[in-house]
């Protein structure tokens, strides 16, 4: 399901969004809206954002991703960011942007495996 360029798949109570396109500012913002709408519509408890396809993440996109995670959390959904490329990670930390508060995993499988742990600790708190 998607109105924008980034497809959002549903796997049980989890949403999987795979970003393959070059992210312009407007595309990133549209993505954020699409994701939140999808969470509301499907009542998903988990969100995995796969950025294996991104060869560049600047502060704008980094902020969108971090904010999306926070917004999803307010709606009761845990988010895991997966597949960041080495050069993207290096660039972000060099800029001083370490995306604190965002959960990360190596790939989609690991992300899906991490969600239950995050969700159970959320339930306890």
């Amino acid at each position: 399901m998607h109105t924008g360029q980034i497809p959002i798949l549903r796997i049980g109570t989890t949403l999987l969004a795979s970003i393959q396109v070059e992210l312009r500012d407007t595309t990133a913002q549209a993505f954020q809206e699409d994701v939140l709408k999808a969470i509301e519509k499907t009542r998903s408890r988990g969100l995995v954002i796969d950025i294996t396809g991104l060869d560049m993440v600047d502060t704008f996109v980094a902020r969108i991703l971090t904010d999306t995670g926070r917004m999803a959390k307010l709606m009761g959904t845990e988010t895991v960011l997966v597949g960041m490329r080495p050069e993207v990670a290096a660039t972000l930390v060099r800029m001083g942007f370490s995306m604190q508060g965002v959960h990360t995993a190596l790939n989609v499988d690991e992300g899906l495996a991490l969600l239950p742990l995050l969700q159970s600790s959320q339930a306890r708190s």
Partner: protein
Amino acid sequence: MAARVLSTQEIKITSEDEVVLVRRAVRALAERRGFDSFASAALTTAVTELGRNIWVHARSGLVIIEELEDGPRPGVRVEFRDQGPGIPDIGWAMAGGNSTSSSLGLGLSGTKRLVDEFQIQSEAGRGTSVRITKWKRF
């Protein structure tokens, strides 16, 4: 010895589309001159940040992309010029920015760490000029 300019490209910024063009042009240049993926990502990110600043804060500007050579060493230099509001206190902006213009502040100081040379000139009401250079690492 001063660096030699091998080629120049000018791109006028009037919309978000041109920022994307700048990014693609710089990435293509870095790849052509054999920059490694880390250096290329750093450079591409830096120009996207600075190009966006023009678009967001000044709405129009000019980007000049130069292919350099210092002896055998390739480099890329990009200059960003706009006639926007300018930055009244560069030191303050570069020191990590503030909450309202946090995008500008973090963008500038963070961008500086991604490149080898960083020069900025700005005056309130007179516009801004930022020039960055990145050399290929041996």
